[in-house]
């Protein structure tokens, strides 16, 4: 298939394709981080993760409308405000859900799956009632659209760079929070041994609530960022949920590093195969690959070593 092209053309295409893989990687990381925190640290299977993302997207939509109507001069910067609001709204909803529902189910992980699935249906219908069944179009500030021309052929989409920067930034922030802060120590100790953590005076209920809120808040930011590349509708969250779980489970649920490594592996495999094969075939092969690896390593790529 490459016979007709010059070397420079091929180089450019490989560069762009590499970049496409990195964008996909960033998207996966953003999707999966929130879920990895909730699933990995708390053992809660949050099927409503996608709906928390879409909450972020709708917040972005509303923020853009408010800016367009009341402060058109500042429209270029609304996206940052929207991401902060999305984090707060999704995080607050997450804490509310944890308080009302999840905390009663900690000893029954499979029931959290059903409960959060029900929650996702409720949220979908709520979005439909409030915003209408049709998808909404989120208008972006001009500086986020288009691409940077590096050479004649190599063009890099600006929103891709934005998503990458965001993914890196959030990953670093989470890592710092988990491994450098006092609160992170509390979270990790609760994960490792809940009764013991309680015995040394950690308020485990509060840690749980904040952890769940943080995971949902990150989902909100991801949803906000995805308005640049995807659709915003009541059921758009469903588009992401399968890939998200795939990344988290493949990475080893308890490890953030594993999530990142897994996002990288899956995104590179998928985007490379998409280039050489058809889209559907690439998806099939990616899934087969993941299934095969999980058969060999059921605990995922990375896992915490701890005494059972």
């Amino acid at each position, binding site marked *: 298939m490459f016979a007709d092209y010059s070397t420079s053309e091929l180089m450019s*295409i490989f560069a762009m394709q590499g970049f496409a893989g990195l964008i996909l990687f960033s998207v996966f990381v953003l999707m999966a981080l929130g879920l990895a925190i909730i699933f990995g640290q708390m053992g809660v299977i949050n099927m409503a993760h996608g709906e928390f993302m879409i909450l972020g997207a709708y917040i972005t939509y509303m923020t853009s409308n408010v800016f367009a109507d009341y402060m058109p001069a500042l429209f270029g910067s609304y996206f940052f405000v929207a991401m902060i609001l999305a984090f707060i709204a999704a995080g607050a909803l997450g804490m509310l859900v944890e308080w009302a529902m999840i905390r009663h189910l900690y000893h029954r992980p499979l029931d959290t799956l059903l409960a959060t699935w029900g929650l996702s249906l409720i949220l979908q219908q709520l979005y439909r009632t409030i915003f*209408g069944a*049709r*998808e*909404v179009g*989120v208008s972006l500030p001009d500086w986020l659209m288009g691409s940077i021309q590096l050479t004649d*052929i190599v063009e890099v989409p600006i929103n891709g760079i934005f998503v990458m920067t965001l993914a890196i930034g959030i990953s670093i922030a989470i890592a710092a929070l988990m491994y450098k802060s006092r609160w992170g120590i509390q979270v990790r100790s609760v994960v490792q041994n809940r009764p013991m953590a309680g015995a040394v005076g950690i308020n485990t209920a509060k840690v749980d609530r904040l952890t769940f809120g943080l995971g949902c808040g990150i989902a909100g930011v991801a949803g906000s960022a995805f308005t640049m590349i995807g659709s915003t*509708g009541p*059921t758009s969250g469903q588009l992401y949920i399968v890939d998200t779980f795939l990344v988290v489970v493949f990475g080893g649920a308890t490890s953030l590093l594993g999530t990142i490594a897994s996002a990288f592996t899956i995104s590179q495999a998928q985007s490379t195969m998409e280039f050489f094969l058809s*889209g559907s075939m690439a998806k099939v092969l990616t899934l087969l690959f993941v299934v095969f690896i999980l058969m060999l390593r059921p605990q995922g790529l990375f896992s915490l070593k701890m005494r059972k």
Partner: protein
Amino acid sequence: MATMNHASQSGLGGKLPGLVKTLAGAVAGATMAFSAALHAAPATSEVNTTDLAVTDDTVTVGILHSVTGTMAISETGSVQAEKLAIEQINAQGGVLGRQIEYIQEDGASDWPTFAEKSRKLLLNDKVATVFGCWTSASRKAVLPVFEQYNGMLYYPTFYEGLEQSPNVIYTGQEATQQILAGIDWVVEEKGAKSFYLLGSDYIWPRTSNKIARKHIDKLGLKVSGEEYYPLGHTQFNSVINKIKLKKPDVIFASVVGGSNVAFYKQLKAAGIDMTDEKPLVLTISVTEDEILGIGGENIDGAYASMKYFQSLTNQNNQEFVKAFKERWGDDIVIGDVTQAAYLGPWLWKAAVEKAGSFDVDKVREASPGIELTTAPEGYVKIHPNHHLWSKTRIGRAKTDGQYEIVYETDELIEPDPFPEGYQ
């Protein structure tokens, strides 16, 4: 209420079927002329011999679309159009002197639910006809039910063809009506030589692309790629790179649903400016409804091949758009399928009046040749194969989310659900 009336009626029908039939037959002609002169409704026993939910002053029909679940995005417009048409017909005096009442059921984007609800509408509610379904999957699910209980379905969506049921009137285009004229147009007007076919991975895009590929082959031109992505796929950067490498003249796109939004946003972000037309984008899946989600600025310059655009300037359409906005709000948009859904109740009314009866068999018999001169898309006519004769039009997307019509076929295009040489 409809059910109660129906019960008393079926009692009568059960006891005296022969008598009723004979009477109805004997006086039919005379009564028709008589009632027309007096402007009174013909007797119920005479317009309804098959136990339908018809009373002396009402007739009940069904509306069956998804108002919840993932398809609600698309089907909402169809429901609105069908309700508007029914209200307008009622305001004009109804059908055979009877006001139309509707029972709306929710298919909930779930195909077995569609089948179950259609059974409920036909068996329990005894509706005279059903306006509904959107995806081919839902139509295929209800088809056996409609054929078994002899119901009538008016199906609004443009679809892949390869079907012709005595129990369905297809008010949207079958694939050749949408595709062939569109491809001819890009070849003649834009000098296109090579095509990249891209779609979501299910029956409609695959069948459509099969027809497109055959047609492109017949014209002696080149298909430089054909690709499918799973429904709901949100990452198109790889295929966009492939398109950049292959440099086709035309991207022929039939991506649907949420993927649509992702595809156009990423195409634009990757530096492909559709207004340059290098490559030109020709889509058969983006109506004004979808542009709401995609955003006009992200699809500016793409071409769509449809039979209807909201921006049509004929008298019928101006009135239709005005009525639609008055009924459903000023900021609403009307896509191709919405207009096709609007035709359903009107075509049914015309067929019922021609047949002088609500009986499904008589309506079916009367349907071929029914014309509608008041259709927003202009003039349509039902073909004996239950599809509509209609024009193909090409529109160019603008930033305000509307299409500017750049071409329409001179003649109505004959529906051909089983195109020879294209299968």
